[in-house]
């Protein structure tokens, strides 16, 4: 049923419908509204789950690790510094193949301290062995959580659902919140693969010497690659069951006869779509390739979508300092060596630390990349406040 509500509450209500057994989280802006609302649902008895108020994100992640290892459907949410503090556990959860779902309300990283949105935080754990799905709007954020539990439990891989902090978490807009019975029909109850239980004594978290470690990591890598099919399938099943497209690996907008393609992820895609329509009215053919699944990175899908496109600009809210665009390098790497010739793949870093990404600034970007390839640019940079000595 279509409800008008805040993004955080759309997520918390849907998560509750997924019937997690154990929820543990530590408050951090802009994730707080999600935990507060889940605490309320558990407190009021609307959700039969254990809600563990821990003393740090590190323990929050550890609690859900333990809970999942004991057979519980477990959920946590954090952002920014909290995610960095979890980092060690994040790697463990993946290595132990525990199907935990985590909501990352994407936010910038200190220093300087900044509570506003970008996607640097989830980028820091992109190699940890988690599936990372990016939501465009609150409807998709909500839908992705329903899919996430299903994908995670089918693949024994943890999933991070990324939604831009504030821009989505704090935005009020209509979201179709499904009925509990619809969710139950779509998401079967959790059948854990391997748990600690005295009836079938197992050891979880053994150490592996050089004879075994590499194989374990290789298997994990392959599991992520193979999860592409599951992500695609679950997204399709979801469309079947709920009558709307959500998630999947990639999405495109007016790509077919586009001369220029903008590649991006997350909420800025909406702004870009409006711009594309405006430019179309002005006679320009610009298209959009939107990455929903950043990990696993859908190399083939991206290649198939872009192989005829010669001018591409990657717009992203994170940067590999000293290197440049992170998504950009993944896009460049999606083309076989031979096919990179003559193809322009520009890289734009935008919206760091909550900097507004305006249509004007995007227009400037488009105008520039139509003229020349841009190795790396920071969108909307205020040159006046950059001191010479800092360059």
């Amino acid at each position, binding site marked *: 049923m279509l409800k008008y509500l805040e993004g955080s509450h759309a997520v918390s209500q849907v998560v509750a419908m997924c019937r997690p057994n154990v929820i543990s989280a530590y408050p951090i802006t802009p994730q707080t509204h999600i935990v507060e609302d889940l605490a309320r649902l558990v407190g009021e008895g609307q959700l039969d789950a254990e809600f*563990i108020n821990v*003393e740090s994100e590190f323990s929050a992640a550890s609690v859900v690790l333990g809970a999942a290892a004991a057979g519980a459907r477990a959920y946590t949410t954090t952002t920014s510094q909290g995610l960095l503090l979890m980092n060690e556990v994040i790697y463990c959860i993946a290595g132990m193949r525990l199907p935990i779902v985590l909501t990352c309300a994407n936010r910038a990283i200190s220093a300087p301290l900044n509570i506003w949105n970008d996607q640097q935080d989830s980028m820091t754990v992109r190699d940890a062995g988690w599936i990372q799905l990016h939501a465009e709007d609150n409807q998709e954020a909500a839908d992705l959580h329903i899919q996430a539990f299903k994908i995670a439990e089918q693949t024994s891989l943890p999933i991070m659902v990324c939604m831009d902090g504030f821009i989505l978490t704090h935005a009020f807009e209509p979201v179709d919140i499904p009925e509990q019975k619809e969710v139950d029909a779509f998401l079967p109850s959790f059948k854990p693969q391997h748990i600690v239980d005295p009836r079938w004594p197992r*050891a979880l978290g053994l*150490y*592996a010497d050089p004879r075994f470690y590499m194989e374990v990591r290789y298997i994990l890598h392959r599991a992520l690659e193979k999860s592409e099919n599951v992500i695609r399938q679950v997204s399709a099943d979801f469309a079947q069951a709920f009558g709307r497209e959500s998630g999947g690996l990639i999405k495109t907008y007016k790509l077919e006869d586009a001369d220029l393609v903008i590649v991006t992820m997350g909420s800025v895609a909406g702004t870009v779509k409006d711009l594309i329509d405006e430019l179309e009215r002005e006679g320009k053919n610009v298209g959009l390739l939107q990455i929903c699944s950043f990990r696993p990175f859908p190399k083939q899908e991206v290649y198939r979508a872009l192989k005829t496109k010669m001018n591409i600009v990657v717009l992203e809210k994170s940067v590999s300092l000293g290197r440049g665009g992170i998504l950009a390098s993944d896009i460049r790497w999606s083309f076989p060596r031979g096919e990179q010739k003559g193809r322009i793949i520009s890289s734009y870093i935008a919206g760091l630390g909550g900097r507004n990404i305006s249509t004007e600034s995007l227009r400037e970007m488009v105008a520039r990349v139509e003229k020349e390839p841009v190795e790396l640019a920071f969108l909307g940079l205020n040159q006046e406040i950059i001191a010479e000595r800092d360059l």
Partner: protein
Amino acid sequence: MMETTAEDLNRVEKKNLFASGHRACGGCGQALAARLVADAAGENTIACVATGCLEIFSSPYPDPSWRIPFLHSLFENVSAVASGVEAAYKALKKGPVNIIAQGGDGSTADIGFQSISGMFERGHNVLYVCYDNEAYMNTGVQRSSFTPYGAKTTTTPMGNRTRKKNLPILAADHGIPYVATATVDDYRDLQRKVKTALSILGPKYLHILAPCPLGWGHAGDLTVHICRLAKATGLFPVFEIVNGKVTNVLKIPNKKPVEEYLRLQGRYRHLFQKGEPSGMVAEIQEIANQNIERFNL
């Protein structure tokens, strides 16, 4: 929860739920303690173990020594992991089951201190067992906050200048229902304390002195004897704290001078240049005396 009668409590258990084949040094006090604890707890137990010497020597793939469910992830989070296991059992309405979080000094008193404090404060039904070998033995004998005054470690080459952190008291001050200390020589007492703890609902803390032949510099065959001296000198008081009240203190009618304990161990050898005790020995005796007075040993 186990139903426990006095007879159950005093029965000595030998089930080898922590089995042969581990890679501990000969005469390892921690390996001995881990078996005594596992056997006392019994089959219906989940062991959550922190990274450390115990974990390394007991849990290599594919031949770990554990015969009860075993869960390890990191160094500093075992209390939180155990909290999660307990939460899962509650939520799934499974159990009852004994959940025992265990680790060495570092994972208990130092890097894991926040985590254990959180577990105590939240009141999880978990028994935390600390195997105290008074330094970071896994990484090669570096100082921990359990390293006693005067002891030599690779990071306190001139002898440690700080006093041992008193975790049993800190644990009790969280308001948890049961805290106890024990040593590996008195296995009946140790196993009784494990069973007592498991019969109580809520967080419990058991602090076991587990000599490390390598780190303490004594022959492996002295492990049990050294524990007796640690008690007889007053350096390691054995007691229980039930609902905040110190009870069941192990009296030591014929007390021994600390020198007798120190001289047996390489980590204190520097205190006896040319056989003569240095001033530090007197200070260590003073620490023992304070224990004797404080706990009325």
